[in-house]
């Protein structure tokens, strides 16, 4: 098997597949199971300062081409999450701590705890489309984002990734703000702000009404974002959105992603999706006589 190793801001992944945030990532053992299944790295559920139960059900709508979710950022709080991290880091793969907050201080505090817990990097969720006051409200303003990145960079020494929302015309501007403030990488994309209505109930299905669309439906949007960001930025980009197969992963890498996150496909295909994508990429490299994935990153810009 050809080497699938990739380096993202200095972090070495044995392959470019990463478990996306919010996907079974609330507990240490679940994160371990994704690593065992072959993920090159895992991202934790987005963790906040305090315990949050999230939204009442329904929190998920199944669509033929993806999911709509409004979990509402449930999490046990950064304090309790230490125990989960101590389990997760035993897996031997990089664990990326995802955090969400309302201010630069929140983010800085959360990230320094994640670093203490052994996270290889932190991922700032600047992009949750359905938890008001958190996420995309703050993630569409370049100045705000810049402030947050600076605060976090002062408080940790591990790489800092910013996860961006596609629900704005300013994604490249925001990405530039991340880079200029010293951010080490960009994750794109989080979910698209969306809704489903039940005509029988005559109301939105999600208790939160609005949620985030993920899965194959958003792949073309994610690819476009990665492509646009790659044109303008120098920091590494991690792609996400609708990746289910090694072909999808390769599309993202050619558009400019050094690694890819996988979320919804874990629901549809199970954890074996990591192994499948990994071996598909290895077969591809072999059939092309290529030594590694690096030479493919961004080739679609030629």
């Amino acid at each position, binding site marked *: 098997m050809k080497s699938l190793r990739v380096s993202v801001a200095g972090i070495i992944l044995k392959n470019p597949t990463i478990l996306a945030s*919010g*996907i*079974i*990532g*609330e*507990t240490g*053992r*679940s994160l*371990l*199971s994704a690593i*065992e299944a072959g993920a090159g790295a895992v991202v934790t*559920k987005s963790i906040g300062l305090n*315990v*949050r*139960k*999230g939204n*009442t*059900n*329904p*929190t*998920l*709508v*199944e*669509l*033929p081409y993806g*999911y709509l*979710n409004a*979990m509402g950022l*449930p*999490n*046990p*709080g950064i304090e*309790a999450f230490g125990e989960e991290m101590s389990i997760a880091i035993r897996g031997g793969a990089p664990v990326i701590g995802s955090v969400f907050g309302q201010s630069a201080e929140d983010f800085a505090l959360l990230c320094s705890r994640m670093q203490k817990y052994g996270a290889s990097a932190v991922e700032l969720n600047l992009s949750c489309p359905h938890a008001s006051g958190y996420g995309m409200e703050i993630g569409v303003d370049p100045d705000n984002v810049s402030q947050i990145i600076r605060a976090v960079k002062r408080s940790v020494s591990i790489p800092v990734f910013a996860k961006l929302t596609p629900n704005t015309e300013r994604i490249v501007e925001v990405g530039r703000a991340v880079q200029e403030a010293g951010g080490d990488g960009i994750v794109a994309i989080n979910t698209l702000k969306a809704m*489903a209505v*039940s005509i*029988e*109930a005559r*109301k939105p*299905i999600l208790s939160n009404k609005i949620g985030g669309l993920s899965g194959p439906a958003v792949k073309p949007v994610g690819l476009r974002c990665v492509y646009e960001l790659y044109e303008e930025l120098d920091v590494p980009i991690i792609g996400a959105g609708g990746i289910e197969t090694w072909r999808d992963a390769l599309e993202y890498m050619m558009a400019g992603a050094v690694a890819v996150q996988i*979320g*919804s496909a*874990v*629901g549809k295909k*199970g954890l074996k999706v990591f192994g499948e994508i990994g071996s598909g990429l290895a077969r591809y490299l072999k059939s092309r006589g290529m030594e590694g994935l690096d030479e493919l990153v961004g080739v679609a810009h030629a």
Partner: protein
Amino acid sequence: MRSQMFTEIREVVKEGKGFTTLRFRFARNALPGQFVMVWLPDIDEIPMSLSYVEDFKGITVREVGVATRALSSLRVGDSIALRGPFGNHFEPSHGLNLIVSGGTGAASLMPVAEVVGDKRRVDVAIGARTRDEVIFENRARLSSSEVRVSTDDGTYGMKGTAVDLARIMMKEKRYDMILACGPEMMLRSLLELSKEYGISCQFSLERFMKCGVGLCGSCALDGKRVCADGPVFRREELESVSEFGKYKRDEAGLKVSL
């Protein structure tokens, strides 16, 4: 595919004190042990095992809180919305099966008794807290050669737990498989018992469920997703699960002692 698909309640059966069966049509194939997510607009969406898996499907609800109370008060002609079915399913042995049910556990177990299709291969132990809470005894008799009942307070059948009852039955006969569903502490004891006797088992577990499709992680049991990797687990799996019979997780993912 339609998510949260509405269906009309065609039949309501009060099974016992606090237990209600709702019957409806839902044109999806289902296997014994699988569950659905049931949405009651403005209230909640909760997991419920299918207590009938054929064309004319059903769920059997124990009233424990807001959503189950609302479900229990539905009438013929009312509607509920369903997603699913989800999860894996019971696979009875080709030999002799012992079904051990505690409380609402009977809901997911009756379909497996029926799917065996041969009375001689199924015995059933039904445990309940009290006489009024014994459900599906007659239904069990139709598909099993032996049905015994226990109640915690001795108001009906043997006085004792379902595990006590199972222990007696296991002394009398050699079973090839134990299929069980009920309170986790009961299942924990039953696991010990089955180890003693060296019998295979499949237990159906419950955890807090939100997505039902293996995404959100709220149903985590160690590294397993009860909604997708379960709800039915085999003895070997359960033996390696540190949280089984000890902890569950609440809505926020915090550990809670069972």
